[in-house]
């Protein structure tokens, strides 16, 4: 199979071209998103202003799942096709995903105290997201546990693929079992149970998170690529 587009050189050319666009869009979305979320959107009829944590919490959770899905797909490419760009991207994406998961857990916990009356409960949703954080951390630990990164990445990719089984569990947990966490408001088949005036800032914040992820991913991938180039040069000289 030929991956002309997936050659690292071409990827970096395209990403260099897109980079300014991503920065501008990211700043715009974050600015308008935070303003509409924290200032102009109305407080919730029951939760009051505390529901504004949702604008930080929900996109972080979505991104945590998205990044893990990406990691799992990249891992398949690494294990089957031994693809170098997939390696660089997976290594760059994993810590960002861990960051999103941590952010989701922390903001959720801060929301839980005033609303539920507790920081943490061991219900199916919260526990499965905690497992997701452990998967990210385990992925990184396994990758770093080998002296040679080429070995580490294979072991870690296998873990990432096995861990992908957690994704449908996180998504389904609130529907399959009764949990303290509420079921999905938006990613369900009927119309969203969230008012448009609140959906709009949430959409902006989600876009902002997405651009922020792309930005970090490109920067980290560049660093990783250059690091590898240096290693190769050192080995030859």
């Amino acid at each position, binding site marked *: 199979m030929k991956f002309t587009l997936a050659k690292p050189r071409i990827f970096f050319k395209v990403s260099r071209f897109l980079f300014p666009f991503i920065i501008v869009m990211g700043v715009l979305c974050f600015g308008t998103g935070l303003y509409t979320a924290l200032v102009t959107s109305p407080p919730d009829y029951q939760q009051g202003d505390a529901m504004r944590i949702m604008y930080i919490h929900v996109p972080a959770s979505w991104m945590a799942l998205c990044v893990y899905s990406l990691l799992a797909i990249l891992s398949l490419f690494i294990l089957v096709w031994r693809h170098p760009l997939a390696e660089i991207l997976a290594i760059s994406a994993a810590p960002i995903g861990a960051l999103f998961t941590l952010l989701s857990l922390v903001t959720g916990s801060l929301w839980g105290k005033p609303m539920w*009356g*507790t920081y943490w409960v061991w219900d199916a949703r919260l526990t499965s997201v905690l497992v997701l954080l452990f998967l990210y951390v385990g992925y990184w630990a396994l990758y770093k546990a080998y002296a040679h990164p080429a070995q580490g990445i294979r072991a870690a990719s296998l873990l990432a693929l096995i861990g992908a089984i957690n994704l449908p569990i996180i998504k389904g947990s609130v529907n399959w079992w009764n*949990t303290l966490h*509420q079921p999905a*408001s938006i990613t369900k088949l009927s119309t969203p*149970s*969230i008012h448009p005036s609140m959906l709009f800032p949430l959409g902006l914040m989600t876009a902002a998170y997405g651009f922020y992820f792309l930005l970090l991913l490109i920067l980290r991938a560049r660093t990783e690529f250059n690091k590898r180039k240096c290693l190769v040069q050192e080995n030859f000289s």
Partner: protein
Amino acid sequence: MKAKHQRLLTLLVGIVGLGIAVFLVSSAFRDNLVFFYTPSDLSHKKIHPEQRLRMGGLVEQNSLRQDGQTVSFAITDRKNILKVNYKGLLPDLFREGQGVVVEGHLSESGLFQAETVLAKHDENYMPKEVADKLKEKGLWQDDR
């Protein structure tokens, strides 16, 4: 068969196998993975008194009695109803008609002694004015 096709096949078979295994395990544990029981569950389950458990449902309308820190209310799942006693502070979202989860034990008299009360939020988000309008028009859906 090329080496990479073999790797792909091995991985796919492995993932599908793992998926089936996890599905079987989780459906076997379905009953134990519940975070709380409903009043109906408790009515036909043999529960040892003093056994700690969680029970959840909606707070019955007009059942809340508050005397200082001592609170009593009833939890319903629209089939069965169970009275709850509690001493302590209620969370912000606690109100009649709302979902709650209580943690404690069932006393022999059939009264639930709660040590913790957790409010369960639903998935609806809307501004107060919209909620009021919906109630005015009678479009409010409390039942799900």
